[in-house]
C-alpha cells in the first residue's frame, strides 16, 4: 500500500483526471447542446446535431455521476461542505441536467414543432447551465467560501446563492462556458458536414476567441486583485486528516506561489492557450479529429491551471481560513483511498476501451440522409 502522503497526492491528481474527463467527454455533448438551437436551422438539421452525440451522451454523463461518487469516497468533507454550501447552485446544475435524458430520448418521439422546440431549449439549458455554474463555483473557491466547522466538524455555510454570482466568479463562469462550447463546436465540426459544419466552425472561432480573452482576463484579475491562501503552520502531510489543526493566512499573490516554486507548472496555462489556437487552426484545415484532441488539451490546460494555483487548497474558508479544506486534511482514510485507487486503476482503462469502441462503431459523419432513413429509431 502506498504511504498516506502519496495516496493523498494521487487522489488530488485522480480527482483532477475525473474532472478533466468529465469536461472532455460530457463537455463535448454539453457544448453540442448549447449550440443546438443556433447551428441547426430546421428540424432535420437539429436532429443531425443531436445524433452526433445521441449514442454517447448517456455514457459521458457517467463522468459526472462517478465524479460525484469519487468525491464522496475520496474527499467526503469536500463533498459534504461544498454541495451543502452551494445548495442552490448545485440544485440548479441538477435541475438543468434533468432536461438532458428526457430531451435526448423524448424529443423525436412526437412529431410536433412546439414539442421539439421545447426540448431543443431544454437541451440548451442542460448544456449551458452546468458549465456556467461549475465555472462560477471555481471562481468562488479562489475568493474563499464562507463556511465554518464546530467541534464535531458540523459545517455551517453563511453565504447566499446570489453572493456566488460576483464579477470575478462570473468571469470564471464565462471561461468555463466558452471552453465547453468551444470544445462542443470542434466535436460538431468533426461529426458533421456542409452547412452545419460551417456553422460549427464559426462557433468554434467565436468561442475559442472568447475563451482566450476570458482566460487571460481571469488570470490578470487573479494576479492583481485576489489574495491567495497560505498555510503558515507546519503540515504533517501523513497525519490523520483534521481540517482544524492548521493556521492559514491570506496573502496577496499567493495563488501564484506554486508557479514561482515549480516553474514547470507554467506549461499548464501555456497548454490552455496553445490548445485553443491549435484546435482552431486544425479544424479550419479540415483535420477535425486532431482538433478535438487539441481542444481536449486546452481543457487539461485550463482546469490544470486552476488546480495548480489552488494546491494544496481545495476549498478555502473566507470566514475561518484555518478551517480551509486542503488535500491533506479533508480526505478519506488511507485504506479507503487505497481501495479506491485500485478500483480506478482496474476500471478506468476498461471504461476508456469500451467507450472508444462505442465511438468507433458509431463513427463517421452524421447526415440528413441518416436521420431520414432512421426516422423511427434515431433521436
Amino acid at each position, binding site marked *: 500500500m502506498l504511504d498516506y502522503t502519496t495516496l493523498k497526492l494521487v487522489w488530488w491528481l485522480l480527482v483532477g483526471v475525473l474532472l478533466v474527463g468529465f469536461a472532455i467527454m460530457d463537455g463535448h455533448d454539453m457544448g453540442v447542446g448549447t449550440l443546438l438551437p443556433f447551428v441547426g436551422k430546421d428540424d432535420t438539421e437539429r436532429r443531425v446535431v443531436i445524433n452526433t452525440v*445521441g*449514442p*454517447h451522451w*448517456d*455514457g459521458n*454523463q*457517467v463522468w459526472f*455521476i*462517478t465524479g*460525484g*461518487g*469519487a*468525491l*464522496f469516497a*475520496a474527499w*467526503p*468533507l469536500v*463533498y*459534504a461542505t461544498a*454541495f*451543502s454550501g452551494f*445548495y442552490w447552485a*448545485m*440544485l440548479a446544475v*441538477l*435541475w438543468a*441536467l*434533468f432536461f*438532458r*435524458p*428526457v430531451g435526448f430520448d*423524448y424529443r423525436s*418521439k*412526437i412529431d410536433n414543432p412546439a414539442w421539439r422546440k421545447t426540448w431543443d431549449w431544454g437541451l440548451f439549458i442542460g448544456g449551458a447551465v452546468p458549465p456556467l455554474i461549475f465555472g462560477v463555483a471555481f471562481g468562488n473557491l479562489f475568493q474563499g467560501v464562507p463556511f465554518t466547522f464546530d*467541534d*464535531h*466538524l*458540523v*459545517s*455551517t*455555510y453563511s453565504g447566499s446563492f446570489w453572493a456566488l454570482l460576483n464579477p470575478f466568479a462570473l468571469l470564471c463562469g464565462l471561461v468555463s462556458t466558452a471552453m465547453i462550447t468551444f470544445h462542443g463546436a470542434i466535436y460538431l465540426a468533426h461529426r458533421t458536414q456542409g452547412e452545419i459544419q460551417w456553422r460549427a466552425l464559426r462557433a468554434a472561432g467565436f468561442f475559442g476567441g472568447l475563451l482566450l480573452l476570458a482566460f487571460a482576463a481571469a488570470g490578470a484579475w487573479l494576479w492583481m486583485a485576489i489574495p491567495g491562501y497560505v498555510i503558515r503552520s507546519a503540515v504533517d502531510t501523513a497525519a*490523520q486528516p*483534521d481540517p482544524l489543526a492548521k493556521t492559514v493566512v491570506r496573502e496577496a499573490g499567493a495563488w501564484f506561489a506554486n508557479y514561482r516554486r515549480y516553474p514547470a507548472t507554467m506549461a499548464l496555462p501555456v497548454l490552455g492557450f496553445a490548445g485553443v489556437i491549435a484546435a482552431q487552426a486544425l479544424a479550419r484545415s479540415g483535420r477535425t479529429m486532431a482538433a478535438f484532441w487539441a481542444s481536449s488539451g486546452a481543457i487539461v490546460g485550463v482546469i490544470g491551471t486552476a488546480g495548480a494555483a489552488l494546491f494544496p487548497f481545495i476549498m478555502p474558508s473566507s470566514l475561518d481560513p484555518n478551517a480551509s479544506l486542503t488535500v491533506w486534511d479533508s480526505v478519506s*482514510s488511507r*485504506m*479507503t483511498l487505497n*481501495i*479506491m485507487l485500485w*478500483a*480506478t486503476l482496474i*476500471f*478506468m482503462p476498461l*471504461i476508456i476501451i469500451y467507450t472508444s469502441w*462505442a465511438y468507433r*462503431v*458509431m463513427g463517421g459523419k452524421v447526415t440528413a440522409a441518416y436521420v431520414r432513413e432512421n*426516422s*423511427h*429509431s*434515431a433521436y
Partner: protein
Amino acid sequence: MVSEQLVDLSRLQFAATALYHFLFVPLTIGMVWMLVIMESVYVMTGKPLYKDMTRFWGKLFGINFALGVTTGITLEFQFGTNWAYYSHYVGDIFGAPLAIEGLMAFFLESTMIGLFFFGWDRLSRTQHLMVTTLMAVGTNLSALWILIANGWMQNPVGAEFSYVTMRMEMTDFWAVVFNPDAQAKFVHTVSAGYVTGAMFVLSISSWYLLKGRDVEFAKRSFGIAAAFGFASVCSVIVLGDESGYTVGEAQQTKLAAMEAMWETEPAPASFNLVAIPNEAEMKNDFAIEIPWVMGLIGTRSLDKQIPGIKEIKAKNRERIVSGIEAVTALDALRRNQNDAAARLKFEAHKADLGFGLLLKKYVSDFRQLTPAIIDKAMHDTVPRVAPMFWSFRLMVALGLAMLMLFGLALWHSIKGDFADKPWLLRAALYSLPMPWMACEVGWFVAEYGRQPWTIYGVLPTHLSVSTLSVESLYGSLAGFVGFYTVLLIVEMFLMIKFARQGPGSLGTGRYANEAHA
C-alpha cells in the same frame, strides 16, 4: 440543536426523490433481462419477430430508462446537498460503493445502452447481443453496489469510529461488500425488479390479445413474461428479505415492528395475521395469531427466539445510558486528544456512542439530562409499529397475488390456451400497478424501519442533515416534486402512446397501427 422541521423536510425530500427514482429502476432492472432473452432467441432462431420484440420492448424500456437516469442524478448528490454531516461522518465507507458503482457498473450500462439503440445496423447479431447482455450486467451490478451501500446503513460492519477525524472509518472492505444484509437485499430487490419487468410485458401483451391485434407478437411476449415472471416472483418470496431479518440488530428491530411483536415469545413465535397495534400501551388491542409461523419464517428454525419490542427497548435504554459516557468522553477528547482518562472511558463505551447521540435530539448539554428524556430516546429506538405492520402486509399480499397470477399465466402458456382466456388476460392487465406498489411499500418498510437512524446504532437521523434553512428546504422540495411530476406525466404520456401504438411504431410494415415516415 437541529430543528425538527428541517429534519422532517430533509427526510421528506429524500423519501420523495428516492420513491420517484424507484418508480423507474425496478422496470429497468427487470426488462433488461427480458430484452436479453428475446434477443438471444432472435440470434439463435433468426426469426425477425424476436428482433422486433427486442426493439419494441426496448423502445418502452428507453422511455423508462430516461427518467431513471434523470431521477438518479439527484440521488448521487443529495447526500452532499442535504445530508452533509452524514456524508462527512460515513463517507469513508459509504462513498466507496457509490464510486465503484459508477466505475464498474453505470459506465458500462450507459455506454452500452447507446449501442443498444443505435448499433443495430453497425454491429453483427452476436455483437449486438453482447452489447445488450453487458447492458444487463451493468444494470444489475449497479443495483448490487447501491444495495451494498444501503445494506451498510442497516448493518454497519467493517468500520470503526475515530475521534481524531470525528467519523467512521473503513477497517474491512470485504466485510462491507459481503455484508449478509446487503446480499439478502440485493437478491430480493433485483428479483422484485424482474417481477416488475415481467408484469409490464405480460400486461401490455394481454391488452393486445384482448384487442385481438398483433397476436403472434403478443403471444410470444406473454409466454416469455409468464415464465420469467413466475421464476422471479418465487425468488422474491423464497429468497426474500426475511432471510436477512435475523442478521444485525437493525433488522431485528424492524422485524419486531413490522410484526407488531411487543413481547419476546418462546420459540417458535406466532405470526400476527391481522392486528391493531396500540403504541401507547405497547400491546395489540386485537390480533389474529397463527402459531409457529413467525418463528419459522423469521429464523428458519424451531428454537431460535425473536426478541420483542419491549425487550429491544429495555436493552437500548442500557445502551443509551452507556452512550452518555461515550459522548462526554468524546467531547473531552475533542478538546484535548491526549486526555488519557477520557480516552480510557471512551474506549469502554465507544460501542454505544450512537445511542448517546440519540439524546442530542432533546438536549445539547448533557447536564440537563433527566430519566424522562432518556425514556423518550429509548422509545425512539423502535419505529412506529402500525405503518410498518400494515405496509409489510400490503407488500406480502401483493407478492402472493402476483405469485398466483404468474402461476396461472405460466400454466396456461404451457397449455397454450392463454389467448382464449379473457379473464386471465384481464387479470394480467389490471395487475399492472401491483409490482410498483409492492416495490414502493417494500422500500418504505426498509427505510422507515431503520428510524431513528441513518446508520443503525451509529448515526441518528436528526444529526445527519445539512445545516440549511427551512425555507431552502421548502423551495427545493417543491422544485423536485414539481419537476418530477411534470416529467412523470410526460413519461406516462409517451409510454401510453407507444404501448397503444404497439410494434407498429417500429415502422417495419409487419404490424397494426403502422407508423408513417
